[in-house]
């Protein structure tokens, strides 16, 4: 039995029956719900997101520290504000060349999917060339290249797939263990059909041309260059728990309360990202606050000292980060349980009047008669 309010569709007089069936359904579903493994999956999701963000960071760092062949890091997630599939980073040579980069922290066995996804994004980037010129660069693009960056253990797989698919993406690999990045391509097991050369040597040369940068000095400067983590803090499309680290970083402590002002978050976001408009920064801040409130990590503070209180008994950043992750996982788990509850509510409401025994819902629960 449960005290849930039956939906309006439940006929009068059937409320008690609804509650009984609903209670059993929910009990059964929750009992079957693999909470421990779901929690592990969610922690893994956080790790994947972190690895992805760090890979982007490793990929762009040489362009923040220096300007290899004139290229500088310009923007994370170009075109994201349009809601179209986008690359992870945009590099720009002030002479008019751009490089779009996609970071893949792991490559699935079916790497063709990744190549197809890259092809789609490439097409979208090419379609939006005018927008990029007008909104990001203020000048014309005269040359575009596309890069997929991955960790060193996945480099061969994606590079071979790119070559075998006849696609034109340059592979960068990052070895986080030695903090190095290099440009490489794997030798194909077979030549793709669309090479404009016939002799093996010429075919290899053509492959080399396709899978290295046109500016040879860039190949040289990037080949086994040392790199580092630390340049991509705010990625607007990453999962909210990863972005909410910003709130942890921006927090201060008043008395014994960790707290934050909207302005602190805004300043941090603006400082951590490049070339986002003020409006976009404001939207990102709104998303962060809303997301933080949803998972009960942030709450408005009825106190003059700060706009928001971080809901935690801890004050230190490393503890708060753990609290943030735990709260997000709890929230996601609760969300999944709510889905099960809604499912039960819908199913019981739909069936009530037609079915008299819970076993007929296919839930494997013994009906009342069987229990006796």
């Amino acid at each position, binding site marked *: 039995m449960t005290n849930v309010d039956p939906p309006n569709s439940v006929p009068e007089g059937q409320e008690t029956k609804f509650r009984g069936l609903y209670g059993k359904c929910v009990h059964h579903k929750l009992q079957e719900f693999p909470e421990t493994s779901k929690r592990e999956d969610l922690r893994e999701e956080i790790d994947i997101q972190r690895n992805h963000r760090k890979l982007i960071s490793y990929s762009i760092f040489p362009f923040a520290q220096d300007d290899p062949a004139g290229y500088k890091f310009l923007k994370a997630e170009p075109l994201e504000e349009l809601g179209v599939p986008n690359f992870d980073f945009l590099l720009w040579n002030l002479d008019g060349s751009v490089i779009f980069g996609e970071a893949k922290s792991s490559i699935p066995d079916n790497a063709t999917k990744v190549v197809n996804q890259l092809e789609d994004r490439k097409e979208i980037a090419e379609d939006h060339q005018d927008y990029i010129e007008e909104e990001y660069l203020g000048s014309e693009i005269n040359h575009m290249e596309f890069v997929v960056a991955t960790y060193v253990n996945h480099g061969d797989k994606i590079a071979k797939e790119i070559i075998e698919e006849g696609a034109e993406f340059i592979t960068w690999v990052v070895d986080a263990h030695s903090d190095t990045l290099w440009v490489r391509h794997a030798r194909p097991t077979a030549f793709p059909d669309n090479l404009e050369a016939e002799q093996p040597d010429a075919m290899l040369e053509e492959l080399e041309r396709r899978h290295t940068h046109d500016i040879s000095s860039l190949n040289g400067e990037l080949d086994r260059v040392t790199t580092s*983590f630390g340049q991509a803090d705010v990625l607007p499309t990453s999962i909210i728990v990863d972005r909410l680290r910003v709130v942890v*970083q921006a927090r201060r402590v008043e008395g014994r309360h960790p707290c934050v002002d909207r302005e602190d978050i805004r300043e941090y976001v603006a400082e951590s990202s490049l070339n986002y408009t003020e409006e976009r920064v404001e939207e990102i801040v709104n998303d962060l606050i809303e997301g933080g409130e949803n998972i009960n990590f942030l709450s408005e503070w009825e106190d003059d000292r700060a706009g928001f209180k971080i809901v935690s008994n801890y004050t230190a950043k*490393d503890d708060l980060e753990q609290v943030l992750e735990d709260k997000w996982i709890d929230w996601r788990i609760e969300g999944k349980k709510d889905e099960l509850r809604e499912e039960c509510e819908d199913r019981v409401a739909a069936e009530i009047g037609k079915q008299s025994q819970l076993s007929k819902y296919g839930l494997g629960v013994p009906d009342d008669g069987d229990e006796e």
Partner: protein
Amino acid sequence: MDIPEGEYNLKEFCRVIIDSPETVLSGYHGQRIKSYLYLSDDGWRDYLDRHYQTEDLGQITKFVGEYRNRKGAEQPAEFYVGEYKDDLQMVVTAETEEAIRQALLPISQHSDCLSPMPIMTEDFQTMNEIVLSSYDDMRISEFKSKRVPSLADARTRPDVDREIEYKGIDGRERLNEFREEYGVVPTRIQYEHENVSIRIDTSGKFTLETINQESFNILFELLSEVVVNVLELLDVANSIKFEKREVMPGNLKIQVPEVSSGEIHFDQQVTLMQAENFIRGTKISNDLNFSFTDVTKQAGSLDFSAQVTDENRGSLFNVSATEESMRIVPKHDCSFPSLVEFYLAVIQMLDGGARMKLYESHQAA
């Protein structure tokens, strides 16, 4: 401590202390001078004015803070600061350790323009050699030493990272024995001589138990040995910065990043376990207040990255370490005291032979 009126520079101030200790110094603790060296940047005088009562005595500034004594009563604590060199200030006091802990040490904990002067372990060895070679009969009554492979070979289990503290009348001999046997070198020493008793450590603190010409001579001679390297360290820390540069090649203003990162080179290969101990050590330390978030680490050989916050100053930087070195990438409000203090933590708790320098981009080997 009472100072006669006058226009002092640091040298004259020390001369007054030496010549008339009974009129300059008063009370029980007047028999013991502690000298702290601080790296400084523009604004440090204003910072002092904001946090202490200050009084100019020529080139020496007297500053008075308050502390709570053991009986719970508030008491003034007096300090004197003078410039030893540009960007290097010497604070002199005869206050108790408790008064110093409460009233002086916070001076740098929250400041963006003052940091304790770290002494690199190698420089510390040079200082020790100077003292021992100048005084054949100088005794060492107490020392702390640690394993630094690049500075000493070890006969016994050279791979073991160890620290040895010793008290005894034969410290000089023991130090040599430990050095040869275990490859440890000193990081804190108490010297004893007929007219001299002085204690030095790697965090820029010098304690003169005897107030005389000889003690001060040793202090200034030792300082002259390390000053070049510590000022170089200051330059390095000041150069580590993150900026955004505006460019305008077309009709838009575009921001591009300009990062100058730092690099701490380890003297020995560092493992993940050592790195974790270092993080734990900085967390439980009374003096340090760093927090580590966004940590990624792999078991086995070191593959470690994290965002580091200096909680006292709000500075933020990222570290990314291999077995050989640790890259430091500045993020927000990354002032030199945070970096110098972090480096000091590394040489005191992780690798005594580590050296911090400005990262120069290069092709990996």
